[in-house]
């Protein structure tokens, strides 16, 4: 039990995907101008990321590993991800048009979010069990979502600050991300490796 809790603490806080592992930065920078859209993106990513890490894990354990095709991981995973994204889109479209309206535009963006592929690859690297893989995927997604939402809210504020002209836009946003990452260093050591 504690082990699983630690996985979550580790992925959400200590090894936050965005701020310490540098994964998923493009959507982090791109979809964080408005809080609402950031929340939408966070939801969509959480869903897809968890699902796709599980699916990748399964594909790897039951297809690639038995056949000795580990070198095809990247291609397989990216296909799996594309499919999961498509699948998610379908399901959401069918079940909740409202949610679809909110999340619809973000789904295609997720395919090229390297956090998704990154999680799949990292999970395989760690050679762990199914539950761990699922938790790891979820934790990574939760960490991503959390900082994305916090960042979006901060950006809304910074957008109207008297920032020097040269720093307006992405420059100050990156510096903010840097300071966030600085703050997140406070969590280091929380989970002893």
């Amino acid at each position, binding site marked *: 039990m504690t082990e699983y809790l630690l996985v979550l603490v580790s992925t959400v806080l200590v090894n936050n995907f965005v701020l310490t592992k540098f994964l998923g930065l493009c959507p982090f920078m791109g979809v964080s101008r408005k*809080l609402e859209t950031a929340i939408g993106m966070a939801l969509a990513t959480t869903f897809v990321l968890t699902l796709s890490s599980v699916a990748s894990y399964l594909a790897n354990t039951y297809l690639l590993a038995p056949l000795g095709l580990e070198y095809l991981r990247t291609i397989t995973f990216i296909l799996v991800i594309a499919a999961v994204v498509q699948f998610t889109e379908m399901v959401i479209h069918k079940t909740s048009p409202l949610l679809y309206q909110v999340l619809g535009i973000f789904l295609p963006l997720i395919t090229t979010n390297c956090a998704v592929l990154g999680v799949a690859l990292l999970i395989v690297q760690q050679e762990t069990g199914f539950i761990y893989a699922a938790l790891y995927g979820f934790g990574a997604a939760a960490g991503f979502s959390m900082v994305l*939402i*916090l960042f979006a*809210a*901060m950006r*809304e*504020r*910074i957008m109207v*600050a*008297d*920032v*020097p002209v040269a*720093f307006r836009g992405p420059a*100050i946003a990156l*510096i*903010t991300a840097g*300071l*966030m990452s*600085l*703050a*997140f*260093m*406070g*969590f*280091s*050591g*929380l989970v002893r490796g």
Partner: protein
Amino acid sequence: MTSPTPTSPHTLAAASITRVMLRVIIALIPGLAAYIWFFGWGITINIAFAVLVALGAEAIMLQLRKRPLLPFLTDGSAIVTAVLLAFAIPPLAPWWITFIGIIFAIVVAKQLYGGLGYNPFNPAMVGYVVLLISFPREMTSWVPTLSFSPYELSFVENAIFIFTGHLPAGLAIDALTEATPLDTLKTNLGLGNTVSEIKSQLGLDEATSRLLSVIPIFGAIGGKGWEWINGGFLLGGLWLIYKKVIGWQIPAALLGSLVSISVLFYIIDPDLYASPVFHLFSGATMLAAFFIATDPVTAATSNRGRLIYGVGIGILMYIIRTWGGYPDSVAFAVLLMNMTVPIIDHYFKSRVFGRHGD
């Protein structure tokens, strides 16, 4: 008749930012006095130097940003930042530590965001964390309280060391520095000792216990000396609340949550977890509660939001102190909660007169 200022009110109370900042500085005096008493005059050099650098950096940045110098240099906020950062820097840290810290605080954390009022992160804490992770060696060696120091540096010797790195002949810096109480507690807990063992120096490996018997770093309730310094800050802080410079919400929430959570764990296992009183009177707890977490610019806005903000800092402080890699966690806890301020502000507004429900 000159052309009218178009708007009411036409009369203003005698409040000004300078006055607010001045009061904050005044409130720091009791803490400072205790600090000087226990750690010597070194801090005054650091403070003076930090203030100088801060004003210089602020002036240059204002010039570059084409903003008027006078109102911003006299508002006193850069001075508060500098003083608070100087408090966090070890008294014997070389001058360039202070310099780099202030530059990060004033230039990156404050002026790049538009200066006074716009910075989302607490400048002093940004400066401190940058230093802590970049120069951990300089930043983690503190000096023992004066009465136990093997050698008492004079003011001049102190200044010479800070600016040139030279110590009086025959002295090595290792001999003058010590880990802080929180640090010692943490590392020894990490080695499997219990709190009471550590405090009574029983069962420690001999080197440490030998050391502790010469230089006791634990006082009656907190760290030696630190308890008085914290007391000083508490006093100053209460005065600030009385003067309405700060609200009671953040300090109360911060200290309240810190106490609650430490009581909880203390009850579970007093051998593994330090007592609430120790938490309150060690490290920068009181400074954080009354002077750092309360930085109006970077704290939450509504009173409800402030309570949440304070509780968040208190809990994070405890978590990082107890299970994290940093013995004193004030800076990280504050910066982490700074990140959540816009969200808190977004979701916790005050209940408006005549509106119910939300």
